[in-house]
């Protein structure tokens, strides 16, 4: 992985050497990014700096060092900036006593539009998140998914060029999740920026044009999703096989060129195997299971995001800290 941000002229959202410290505590450090239009996902475990980065882009936080430029605009000029930028935060809180409609409508009035225009935009945004029926009800009575959607409606109600969403799929049921993803695609299809944060890698895998992996305030990988996925594939995957004869199984599987390492599990009831090609390894396991060894379960143990970060940080993170890779 090399630290080579994309050319400036192709990028519209730029962060140059941005760092944020909360006193002694690191938020993010030496972030250099240039984000083109399309769906960009910020992925990282809790505490990796995703929200801090989004708050820095939208001016809710101010960088300790470095500069942020969003399509040539700065949050220091909110009158221009927030007519073009919408941010759906993770804060699940609302002005007291508001209905869903009031919430979207009232903050639209801050744009200086008249009642009719705000009303039209509010209903349009509410319709886009399929919340028309619930809109006249108090938000306090909404489910988590409905609250998520009304926040989304509020953030898109002014039709922003740049849409930033912090964990937008949290709490949504599968149907609404699919509709919401379709909405993001519609936005990005119109040449807008959609920046999404998530700690679930497979979730962003299916929707993102590009991905930025973060860990402990640093960018550990950045680029198109395919490249990051390939990087993941190069990393040996660890599989736990529960079986009645782990030693015998170990001697059998070492015959495969895809197996890098195998060791008997500490409880003696299984085998931990590292393989470079999971698909071929599973085929081989089917064959072994049919030849005398009783295999109870075969389960990957390190396909979660945390493992990926550990891999990226251990293997190359130190060289990429502050830069990212393509």
């Amino acid at each position, binding site marked *: 992985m090399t630290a080579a941000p994309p050319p400036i002229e192709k990028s519209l959202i730029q962060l140059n050497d941005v760092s944020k410290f*909360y006193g002694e505590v690191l938020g993010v450090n030496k972030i250099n990014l240039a984000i083109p239009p399309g769906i960009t996902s910020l992925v990282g475990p809790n505490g990796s700096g995703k929200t801090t980065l989004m*708050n820095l882009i*939208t*001016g*809710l*936080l*101010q960088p300790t060092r470095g500069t942020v430029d969003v399509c040539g605009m700065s949050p220091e000029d*909110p*009158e*221009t*900036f*927030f*007519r073009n*930028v*919408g*941010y759906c*935060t993770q*804060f699940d*809180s*609302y*002005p*007291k006593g508001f209905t869903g409609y009031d919430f979207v409508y*009232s*903050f639209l*009035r*801050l*744009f*200086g539009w008249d009642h009719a225009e705000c009303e039209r935009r509010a209903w349009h945004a509410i319709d886009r998140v399929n919340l028309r029926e619930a809109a006249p009800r108090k938000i306090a009575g909404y489910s988590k998914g409905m609250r998520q959607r009304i926040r989304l409606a*509020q*953030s898109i109600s002014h039709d922003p060029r740049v849409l930033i969403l912090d964990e937008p799929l949290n709490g949504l049921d599968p149907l609404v999740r699919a509709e919401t993803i379709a909405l993001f695609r519609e936005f990005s299809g119109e040449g807008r920026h959609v920046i999404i944060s998530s700690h679930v890698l497979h979730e962003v895998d299916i929707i993102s044009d590009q991905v930025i992996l973060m860990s402990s305030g640093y960018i550990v990988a950045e680029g198109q999703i395919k490249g990051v996925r390939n990087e993941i594939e190069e990393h040996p995957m660890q599989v736990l096989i529960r079986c009645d004869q782990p030693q015998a199984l170990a001697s059998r599987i070492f015959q495969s060129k895809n197996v890098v390492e195998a060791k008997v599990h500490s409880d003696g009831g299984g085998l931990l195997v590292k393989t470079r090609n999971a698909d071929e390894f599973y085929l081989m396991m089917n064959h072994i299971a049919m030849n005398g060894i009783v295999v109870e379960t075969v389960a990957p143990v390190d396909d979660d995001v945390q493992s990926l970060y550990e891999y990226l940080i251990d293997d190359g993170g130190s060289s990429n800290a502050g830069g990212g890779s393509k």
Partner: protein
Amino acid sequence: MNPVWWKQISAVLRLEVKKSFFSKRGLWIYFLALIPVLIWGGHWMVMRYKAERMHNNAGAGVTKEKLMSVKQGMTVAEVEGILGRPATSRTVTRRNGTEFRYWSYSDGTTTRHITFRDGAVQRLNTEHAGCDLQEDTVIFAGIFQFFYLRLAIFFGCMFVFMNLFRGEILDRSLHYYFLAPIRRDILVVGKYLAGLIATTVIFCVSTIAQWALFVVHLDPINRDAYLQQNNGYQHLLAYTGVTALACLGYGSVFLAAGILIRNPLITAATVLIWESINGILPATLRQISVIYYLKSLCPVEIPMQQGVPAPVALLAVNVDNAPPIVAVLGLLALSAVVVFISTRRIKRMEINYSTDN
């Protein structure tokens, strides 16, 4: 001024005024504003009851002169000879055989309570239906300065104005404003005006109600004297104006405190102490306070009699009243400077609810 800013201020008012008026947590403000109204309302009812009782007890042929002619040492028969049968009477005989008679006579406006001991007048008390205008005017000024200005309006403004920003940080909803295309200084002005509308309406209505009850409780002669010779309407105007200026001044201070300082208790205690010791501060420092200007505008001076406790004397003392125009302009300038500081500070404010709580 940019016309969009007016629309934005109006949108902020739309969001904030209702919240400032009807916050469940802030209902006690109405109670604070109501306390002096209840005091004067209660006083009025007591006075009315007293006047009615005197009127009902008025004896035929009883005049003020006759009432005042009763002296200590007179016998029961002598008193009866002057005033006739009493309107009310009660007799108590002690164990040692001493007899006490408690008689009351009234001419409709004055009541004389006579205590006989073993058949001779021992004690005389006189009660008038009307009130002492001068004394009541000073009492009104005392309640207004010591309770209403220094406690009710002070703490009412503290709650409303500190909540404008600090309350939203605690509720984690301030970011919605910060993510809207509104300049933060315009937001400060909008929120300040919302708080000002709410507090001014609540406290000025209370001031007017207090004054109205004060006037109503006066007997007709004193009422005419107060309204026509004693500048009653000017008092109303002055008290209402001082109330509005108090909301303006304390509002600006607590608005800034809500933006600059996290702990409202420390802020309240600091401002309260500063305002309380205003009278003993050097002249220059004295002018950096709200109460200095407000006291200068109060229409009635509270005379400090000997023997008044030191803390009360400290609150009342105003060694060099500012002329009214200077007081009004000084307070407006002080408020403008504090609001300006708030607008500068809020530009650097970050949304970081976890550490702000």
